[in-house]
């Protein structure tokens, strides 16, 4: 396993936020607050590691993925790739960095041009140096992700969801990236497929020296293959720790409840399921202070006033909670 801290970070995400501004007024537009889709989320991705972020749908995972790649422009905060601030890059240099950071979209089918055959999808994504002998490389990529070469002439309409997903991964790999951001699908029956993809990614990781950010809905499939695990809640990363550490000592009350509710994760204090009252808030009506306070057992007056700082509780174990 990679011991993350002694390696250089490939990607630094610093207080990243993504807001959608709201307007009101019939004749004159006036700002009326914003939807806070993603809020001050910070973490680092180290070379060669598998970082899994878990959070239910609506917790900002997809927005995080798109914001990291600067496919959606962040409201605040910044993303650094090997020390370069992505927001400072323009034109050719931005495109070059984008090729190094590849995303496998949550909805793999929607991310494929409906009229473009698989072969063309891959050909277009090839690194410029490889366009000389594209066919061999395309076959190689298909083999890498276990995508049948017979399907290369098909358009997405003729492919299954699983095949679209593999094609999406092959397209990401075609650019010879350093980082793969994998946004796992939301369908509840996708766990098994998700596990397969995770295993595949894990094996590709070492041969292609990839760093991988895996965004998943539930912690169970992710756990076995992760180096570090982060937990997202209502648009913010609220805890981040090495996998073992998080299983043993989840610090944030939400992480505790989430892990307790997930079968197959050992080492929790007591074995009882902690039930959370209520539901996750929507981006339009986040509670003030700590976004978890209406559901938290340990809530204190300070929790209603200010959001908790992101800090290290112990080396490598980050959390955002006043009471830790």
């Amino acid at each position, binding site marked *: 396993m990679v011991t993350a801290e002694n390696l250089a970070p490939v990607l630094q995400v610093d207080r990243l936020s993504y807001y959608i501004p709201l307007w009101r007024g019939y004749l004159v537009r006036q700002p009326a607050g914003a939807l806070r889709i993603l809020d001050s989320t910070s973490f680092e991705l180290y070379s060669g590691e598998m970082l899994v972020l878990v959070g239910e749908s609506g917790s900002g995972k997809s927005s995080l993925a798109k914001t990291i790649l600067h496919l959606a422009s962040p409201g605040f905060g910044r993303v650094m790739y090997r020390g370069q601030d992505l927001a400072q890059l323009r034109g050719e240099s931005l495109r070059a960095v984008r090729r190094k950071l*590849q*995303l496998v979209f949550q909805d793999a089918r*929607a991310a*494929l*041009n409906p009229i473009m055959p698989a072969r063309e999808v891959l050909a*277009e994504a090839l690194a410029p140096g490889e366009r000389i002998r594209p066919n061999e490389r395309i076959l190689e990529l298909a083999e890498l992700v276990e995508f049948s070469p017979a399907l290369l002439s098909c358009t997405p309409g003729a492919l299954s969801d699983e095949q679209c997903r593999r094609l999406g991964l092959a*397209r990401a790999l075609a*650019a010879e990236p350093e980082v793969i951001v994998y946004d796992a699908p939301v369908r509840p029956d996708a766990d098994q497929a998700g596990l397969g993809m995770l295993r595949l990614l894990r094996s590709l990781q070492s041969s292609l020296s990839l760093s991988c950010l895996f965004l998943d809905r539930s912690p169970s499939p992710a756990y076995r293959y992760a180096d570090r695990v982060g937990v997202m809640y209502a648009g913010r990363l609220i805890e981040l720790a090495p996998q073992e550490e998080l299983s043993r000592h989840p610090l944030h009350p939400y992480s505790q409840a989430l892990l307790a509710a997930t079968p197959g994760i050992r080492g929790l204090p007591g074995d009882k399921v902690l039930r959370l009252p209520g539901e996750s808030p929507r981006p339009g009506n986040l509670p003030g202070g700590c976004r978890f306070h209406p559901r938290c057992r340990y809530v204190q007056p300070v929790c209603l006033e200010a959001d908790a700082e992101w800090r290290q509780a112990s080396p490598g174990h980050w959390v955002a909670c006043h009471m830790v």
Partner: protein
Amino acid sequence: MSAFIFRRAVWLLPIMLVVVPSACLLLQVSPSTLCDGRGLVLPASHSLFAAPENGSGWQSPVGNSIRLMLVGAALGLGLGFPMGLLAALGRGNWLDKSIQALCSLFISLPGLVLAGLVLGVMAWMGKAGATPDWEKPAAWLAPALVTGSGLLGFTARIVNEALLQALGQDYALAARAKGLTEREMVIRHLLRNTWITVTNRLTPALTSLVLGSWLVEAVFGYPGMGRLFVQAILQGERELVWSGVIIYAFLAALAGLVADVLAAALEPRLREERQR
């Protein structure tokens, strides 16, 4: 592809089989001057097809009308597509807004009213009055533009909508993520998809272009079928009205066929589906 065109063309037969008798029936029962008790004669060698002395068949009223429709359609599509593109790429700027306004105008104003307006403006500029020389292409411009205006507005709006929608799709994001430039992305991924959307929805716009053209012709005094058609109605020339109805119905059905063939040529999947 030729099989598809053939099969699609065969469908013209039943359409015409419905149109011809029903036009006949309507004329028989109509209480106007059109009904004088005589039977209907087949529209064989009418003045509609008569070319002027020493002219070709293209200069007969029918030929003139078809030419006007073709030029109108070409102008509508040819101007509408880039306008929609400009509007979509310049989201929200003044160009986008003025194109949108123009499109709403073109779509909502009937050709008849627009033709009147254009004539009014031309008169005000001192350009109208004398009968224009229809041999000159410049004289065509105004009626052809008015004929194509509905199609122009429609095309621009569909292109704009389809592009905006496609720009927000994940596959556009994916193209950006691959490191394509904005221009490569639009050209390689979006234009063709947009064009498919346009051709898929072209049928009603093309048929209404055909059916709207005779009014425009009549207002401009263009030497096509439209003028003769109006005269025929006013003077109760039944055969002429009947032939006119049939010719227009045929052209409208043909326009639908052209739109379908265009759509199928771009999207093979569609071809297979419609063949079934």
